[in-house]
């Protein structure tokens, strides 16, 4: 990717979704994009989902991230940078409040043990709430760019599909079965005599079952609101102003995952705006690893062990770089050469604003790999 294409990502998007497997620097990348956008005068908010609070680390926030957007003080920016951590359960509570008919219904749902489990643990809830938060922040006048760091999923589609998870859950046969007594006025006990529910009750215990029945009954009437909201969120994710960035590190396994992500997005008709490969060893001088190794052998033969060690070091670092660039190839093929940008491993760990600024400089001002 050339610098102008990276510029485009920052200037033209109003939502940027960063996807990739865990540990590839996805959160750092999201922070770098937000930082650069702020430097260019935009009001950017970066949302991280990672429970490890890596964004807080990267932004140098000692107390960690809050679940409300916090403004990061920047002295070199005309815009604003805000950051927040997704609180999955609190976000879900918010949707329940927005859709409930009255306070009594809110309380019945929020107090229900089964609801607490769904809010915290239903597979896909985290992705769904990330998408929901993205929608809420997009509508918030304080911000004109939302950068979201997705959960470290193996499946890019988890995020795209997530808003539909609850709808499908509500369409579930069991849900309908459980809704029957509420409609026909039968007691919960009557439902539990259904053989399938009895079986579930025997496996998980009757108290858990009773909680779930109570939840579904409390939820009655809210399905429509939830479905409409999910549709809005899906529409935003697929809107042209939403850009997708696939993040990887320069290792065989994470590149393979990134290729898989790109393939999945393309199948869904979604373009990947950029594929960012973090932590490639920088180039030192002209020439190959073999050249450096030859020079090292020559120096050793000439009785210059110090110089031999220096050449050997260059050979090692070039070897790594050559191997890293080779593993990146498949990603360049699926995403397109012009969309791949390779960022260097720095000589220190990135855990503060200066580190992020260094990466931003590489990403936006100086293309590292001449392709």
């Amino acid at each position: 990717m050339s610098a102008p294409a990276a510029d485009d990502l920052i200037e033209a998007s109003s939502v940027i979704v960063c996807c990739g497997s865990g540990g590839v620097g996805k959160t750092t990348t999201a922070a770098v994009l937000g930082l650069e956008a702020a430097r260019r005068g935009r009001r950017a908010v970066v949302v991280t989902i990672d429970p490890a609070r890596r964004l807080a680390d990267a932004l140098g926030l000692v107390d960690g991230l809050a679940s409300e957007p916090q403004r990061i003080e920047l002295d070199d920016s005309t815009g604003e940078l805000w950051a927040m951590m997704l609180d999955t359960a609190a976000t879900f509570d918010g949707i329940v409040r927005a859709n409930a008919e009255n306070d009594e219904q809110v309380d019945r749902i929020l107090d229900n043990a089964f609801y607490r489990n769904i809010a915290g643990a239903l597979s896909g809830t985290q992705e769904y709430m990330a998408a929901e938060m993205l929608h809420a922040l997009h509508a918030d006048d304080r911000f004109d760019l939302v950068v979201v760091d997705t959960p470290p999923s193996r499946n890019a589609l988890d995020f795209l599909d997530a808003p539909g998870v609850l709808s499908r859950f509500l369409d579930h046969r069991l849900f309908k079965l459980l809704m029957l007594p509420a409609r026909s006025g039968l007691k919960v006990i009557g439902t539990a005599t259904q053989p399938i529910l009895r079986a579930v009750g025997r496996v998980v215990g009757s108290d858990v079952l009773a909680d779930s029945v109570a939840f579904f009954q409390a939820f009655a009437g809210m399905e429509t609101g939830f479905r409409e909201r999910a549709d809005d969120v899906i529409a935003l994710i697929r809107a042209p102003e939403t850009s997708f960035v696939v993040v990887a590190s320069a290792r065989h396994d994470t590149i393979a995952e990134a290729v898989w992500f790109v393939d999945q997005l393309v199948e869904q008709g979604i373009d990947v705006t950029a594929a960012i490969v973090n932590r490639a060893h920088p180039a030192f001088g002209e020439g190959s690893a073999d050249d450096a190794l030859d020079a090292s052998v020559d120096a050793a033969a000439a009785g210059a062990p110090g110089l031999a060690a220096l050449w050997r070091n260059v050979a090692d670092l070039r070897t790594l770089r050559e191997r890293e660039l080779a593993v990146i190839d498949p990603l360049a093929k699926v995403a397109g050469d012009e969309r791949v940008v390779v960022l260097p491993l720095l000589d220190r760990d990135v855990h503060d604003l200066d580190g992020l600024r260094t990466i931003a400089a590489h990403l936006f001002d100086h293309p590292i790999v001449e392709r």
Partner: protein
Amino acid sequence: MPPESEYPLQSLTAARVVVVAGKGGVGKTTVTAVIARAASRAGQRVLVVELDGKPALAELVPDLEVLPISAPDALDEYLRDNGFARIAKRLNRTGVIDMVGTAAPGIDDIVVLGKIKQLDRSGQYDLIVVDGPAAGHAITFLTSAAGLADSVRSGPVRAQADDVLELLHDPQRCQVVLVTLAETTPVNEVIETAFALEDQVGVQLGPVVVNGVDDGVDLPDESATASLVAGLEPEVAEALVDAAAFRRSRRQMEAQELARLTDQLPIPQIVLPAKLVAGLTPDDIDELATVLAVHEDGPT
């Protein structure tokens, strides 16, 4: 110097079930493969358990037994084994399995751990190495049993949770090996995870494995480097100087982080050297396994 473990392989395999955990990208799968390879070479009957559906592990140890365990399959098997054979199919078909997982979160984790417990009890293996979940999930994975035991008061799931707790609390049977890199963020995370696991799970912690530490060529220092390159063409001199500075800086950071880890987490460390590759092969795993077995004549 960090408190390096004197007998790395013995300390890593001190319990029959070893759960390897660490944040994404630190080399959890590598460490799983290396432990399994080293133990297998030492004559142990080893089973490798893989939880997240990645084929990479089996490729790294092609001749070892690798068992992928998925939560839905484990739950299905569990229901069949516990007198629910007749309804298991129906439960699956109607999606009730998903519902059960939702109704009692952690049930997925429990059945997976339960399956591991069963494999341990079978007596077929001397060592079961589990490529565990990423650190963020490691805590919930291992606390699920205690959580379920609190919320589910009866039934087969409760019984399973009790069995799993027994496994987790027995240091002879189970320990957790945390993996990190010698970098700031991974070290922060491994320290947090270690304390959380001790407090919330009460599981035995094995040595922490620091992966990918640079132990390569000895480099002259900055001033020696400057005089060594004097007289070379400027571009060549610059490349040599910059490359040496880069590597010294990375090494200094690694040394600082190792020292901080030693300071803040008083458990033995095992350091695995970095390889000059962008993806490991079975041969690399073999070489790294040799590092673990360096004191293999140690106490048994």
